[in-house]
């Protein structure tokens, strides 16, 4: 199972590269093959405009990875920074930052993302902004909790007594110890961002036509579920396999990085 998840992940990463190398045209319309089942010419069949589903799936996975990587990178940076400051300084700084974090946590993440996306308007850029605005809180909470305990470790206190500045303490003595936890969190975050992107696109708040997105493809596919079940099954299957692979990969990574686990 472990290797299966890595293989699936590798497959999709290769698919992203392949999509660029083959220079497929995911927007080419052919009215003659509307909702056609898989054939030798169209391996995954054709969609409601006669576009090749395989080409659109490859284009969609590229968008998913792009959004997931950018959002995860940005939210991790913001969240870790907020968490480090709150955990290191404590007191009022901690109280204020955690109050803000709690306000964001009080809303279901996807609901907040939908609200932001609706206000900002549809489109790739706004979708990334909406997900960034809601995604940093889990990193902030996690980092703050760890920093509170690491702050009192002897090596940190020793560095402080030797005159190390706050940036050095945070980024040389505390952050490296958080790396493994953050990497595991980031893998889960990748999967949840992909689902959020698909959800927002499904609702029409994400990637706009004619650009391909798995969420938007699922929305279209559902309309034709009775006539062309292959469409919804293929897109749904692709999304499920990728998310499952990332989550399982995250589990194995967590186990591998867990120092308490016996060899």
């Amino acid at each position: 199972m472990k290797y299966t998840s890595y293989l699936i992940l590798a497959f999709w990463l290769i698919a992203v590269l392949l999509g660029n190398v083959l220079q497929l045209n995911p927007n080419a319309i052919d009215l003659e093959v509307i909702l056609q089942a898989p054939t030798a010419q169209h391996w995954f069949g054709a969609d409601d405009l006669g576009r090749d589903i395989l080409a659109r799936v490859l284009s969609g996975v590229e968008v998913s990875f792009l959004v997931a990587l950018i959002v995860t990178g940005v939210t991790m940076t913001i969240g870790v920074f907020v968490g480090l400051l709150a955990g290191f300084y404590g007191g009022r700084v901690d109280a204020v930052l955690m109050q803000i974090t709690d306000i964001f946590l009080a809303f279901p993440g996807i609901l907040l993302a939908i609200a932001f996306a609706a206000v900002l308007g549809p489109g790739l850029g706004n979708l990334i902004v909406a997900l960034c605005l809601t995604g940093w809180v889990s990193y902030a909470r996690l980092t703050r909790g760890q920093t509170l305990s690491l702050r009192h470790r002897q090596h940190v206190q020793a560095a402080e007594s030797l005159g190390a500045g706050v940036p050095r303490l945070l980024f040389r003595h505390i952050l490296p110890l958080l790396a493994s936890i953050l990497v595991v969190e980031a893998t889960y975050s990748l999967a949840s961002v992909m689902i959020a992107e698909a959800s927002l696109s499904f609702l029409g708040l994400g990637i706009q036509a004619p650009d391909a997105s798995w969420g938007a493809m699922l929305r279209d596919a559902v309309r034709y579920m009775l006539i062309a079940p292959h469409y919804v099954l293929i897109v749904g299957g692709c999304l499920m396999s990728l998310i499952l692979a990332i989550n399982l990969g995250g589990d194995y990574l967590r186990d591998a990085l867990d120092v308490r686990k016996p060899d």
Partner: protein
Amino acid sequence: MKYLRFLLIIYFLQLSACDFASKDTNRDASVHQSTPIHFALSQAPLSLDPRVATDAASERVIRLIYQPLVDFDQNFKPTPKLADWQMVSATEYLVSLKSPRPLFHNQQPLNAEDVKATYDAILQLANSPLSAEYANIQKITVHDAEHLTFYLKQPDPYFAAKLIIGIMPKQLLEQQHDFARYPIGNGPLAFVKKNNKLVLRRVADGQIITLSEVKDPTVRVLKLLRGETDLLQGELPAELVKYLQTKPEVTVKTSPGANYSYLGLNMQDPMLSSLKVRQAIAHAIDRQALIDKVMVNHTRIAGAILPPEHYAGNHSLKAYDYNPQLAKRLLTEAGLSLPVKLIYKTSTDAQRVRIATILQAQMRPAGIELEIRSLDWGTFFEDVKQGNFQLFGLTWVGIKTPEIYTNVFASNHFPPNGFNRGRFSDATLDSLLEKEDWQAATDRIHEQLPYIPLWYEGQFAVSNKKITNYSPKPDGNWDDLATIRKYAH
């Protein structure tokens, strides 16, 4: 005597047999009546008050709950419904109510005072979207219970065609009755209740008809196939209609439609003000391919807002053929460098976006790079009304009178005085519209292309096998709910 007694016994036996038979018949009828007919809609009616309703679902239900003075025949000519009319002069219409007339659903009779109260209420209601349309009424004089006269401020030879508002009881209007939620008219269907569905009762036989909103087309179809609903009409992708045609358990009825789909152009745009550019766009659309592949059966290419079968229809309009090379040449002749970039605005409706995407692909070989802006309905329609567009796609629904050409294309009908949203101005057309020469006017419109005509979308209704007496109508109304039947087996 014995013979007489025998005859009497036979007579009473027959009477009792008749009584039993009638009870049986009643029981059969009650079986039919106690089996409601379920009609699934994509959009529930928003208001059941004829003075304020503007959405299609509300207007279609209102036609069944209330009755107007005038309706339209198959050739779209005004025809008497509750009343006959006489044009005394172009500013004076004498209306005579027909007899007998159905009672209001609260068992009160309908008379001329109710008619006057209804039209007065429209004029007095601050938020009625119909106020402007009836602003030409100067006064209404009631002569007796069956006769009244409408006096107009300006001559209007088509005023009779505007007497299509459902009549409401005067007494309830005076009591500020909430017609939007508890409608009372004298139409064939009476309001029963509204919770998560609208329940109506047919006055003639007590048949219950429920109208419930099921937004998702796939769910509507599944409900029909599972027997949870009896009837669907319109608002399904063409592929689902074709799929249903293969199902033996349902009946699909299709008919030609009269609702006109078009591309609107902004004539104040520097590029689109050129006739050659407009002609290029008309030649850059493969209408037949679109109709064949993504539209329902009976969809036909349109030439003008009113279909050819309309009494003011034009049979001689020839469709612009799909010719990307000619389109390219026309654009070059107009002095534009290719590709020409245009912004096309549409709503977020899935079928609209689908059509926009196909138009985008079809126009590309003609040297037109179409950018699609899919906006929520409110924003989109506001942009259209404000003239904030280059191209947009819309449909005229339920248009019956040729007066529409003046409203839409006359140069003195820019919003808010009319629907000339593209700000088209043409002296020749103005003079033809003035003369009411509809044939020549539609020829001119077709030649000048302030609208790019697309099609009249076909109508369809899908029902299970228990349903009879229901057919789709050209404008998509639900009038056959007044006669629909449902059999138990």
